[in-house]
């Protein structure tokens, strides 16, 4: 590189950071550092894959929902999650990567998705726990991301957050109803919370000190609050929600800390976290296989659309 172009690069970088420091958004056609672009593609596509893979554990209960109303609600929620995936893929594509490349990275294992979706949904109460805790945790994260520095991502988050609140409320409503039911129903609800509580806390990622991308992401304001801050926020808001319906959170160390003004809570099992992230959770293989086979079995639809398009083109050419 010549001295001149080095200087220009430094200047571009400085202008870019100044824009971010001034709380201005970065838009698709702006100059941006290559690493900012890569970092965003990784984060937004991981988020998109999570929305889409997340349809599987919930989709598992659509045909078995206990009432027609609960079934309609679940169907609507899963449809929303699909929409969220589409908003996010589109936002990622504004950074110059194609949908095909993104899907390919998911299928090859190069791209990750939220590890929570590698846990099975064993009972109807799991659908309640997922809505209340998993969507609850996702909302804490997404509310914060409404202020992310990349315009298309931030606007996607605003749209998504508007749709999310019914997701958490319907989940909580399922739990509340079960807790007002028979002993067996209460037990089922408690069992679901026992299994989903810790994986929900893991959704916020490693501790700040151990988080690979955190510091740079904070400087670039891709992330606005740290993993630990967001996790604490989630714990603080969830404790009261649990108390109201008389369900307990499976952590003996969970208690109010007057001095900090927050709840203290126990240490996450990071071995399990790493095991699931790296592919050995209870459902990793099943989730990916299902996505790949759905994609392959859908190939004829894409082929048919292309064939129809070609035929229309031919007809138009003949008429002209």
């Amino acid at each position, binding site marked *: 590189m010549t001295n001149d172009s080095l200087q220009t690069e430094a200047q571009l970088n400085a202008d870019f950071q100044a824009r971010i420091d001034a709380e201005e*958004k970065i838009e698709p056609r702006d100059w941006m550092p290559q690493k900012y672009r890569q970092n965003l593609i990784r984060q937004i596509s991981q988020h998109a894959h999570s929305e889409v893979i997340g349809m599987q554990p919930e989709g598992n209960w659509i045909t078995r929902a206990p009432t027609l109303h609960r079934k309609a*609600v679940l169907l609507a929620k899963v449809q929303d999650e699909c929409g969220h995936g589409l908003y996010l893929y589109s936002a990622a594509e504004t950074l110059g990567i194609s949908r095909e490349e993104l899907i390919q990275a998911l299928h090859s294992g190069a791209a990750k998705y939220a590890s929570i979706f590698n846990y099975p949904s064993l009972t109807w109460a799991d659908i309640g726990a997922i809505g209340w805790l998993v969507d609850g945790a996702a909302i804490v994260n997404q509310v914060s991301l409404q202020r992310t520095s990349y*315009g298309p991502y931030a*606007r996607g988050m605003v749209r998504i957050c508007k749709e999310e609140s019914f997701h958490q409320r319907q989940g909580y409503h399922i739990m509340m109803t079960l807790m007002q039911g028979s002993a067996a129903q209460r037990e089922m609800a408690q069992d679901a919370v026992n299994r989903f509580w810790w994986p929900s806390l893991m959704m916020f990622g490693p501790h700040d000190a151990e988080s690979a991308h955190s510091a740079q992401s904070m400087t670039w304001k891709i992330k606005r609050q740290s993993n630990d801050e967001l996790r604490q926020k989630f714990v603080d808001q969830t404790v009261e*929600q649990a108390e*109201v319906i008389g369900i307990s959170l499976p952590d003996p160390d969970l208690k109010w800390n007057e001095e900090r003004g927050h709840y203290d809570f126990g240490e996450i099992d990071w071995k399990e976290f790493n095991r699931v992230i790296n592919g050995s959770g209870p459902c990793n293989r099943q989730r990916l296989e299902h996505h790949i086979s759905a994609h392959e079995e859908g190939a004829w639809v894409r082929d048919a659309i292309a064939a129809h398009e070609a035929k229309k083109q031919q007809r138009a050419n003949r008429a002209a």
Partner: protein
Amino acid sequence: MSHHMKLYEVFIRSRRGLDHKHVGSLHAEDAEQAMEYARDLYTRRSEGVSIWIVNSSDIHASQESDCESFYDPLDDKPYRHATHYQLPDKVNNM
């Protein structure tokens, strides 16, 4: 002899971070000229930081008369809204 210049639709982003919004249309010979006209016509008071120009003929619009079949079925799904779920006061800010 009259020569009709093409019609373009103009979209303006008023501030970084916001969506482009449709503000109107204009006639121009090509996109480049349309861009200059749009600047003169729609941003004389710094209404925007970014302009999109789109060929009007490239816009595919739904018909108002299609609305019923397009949107009606969605009116009977109140459960898509947060307010549909009655929760205890203490946690109602969820």
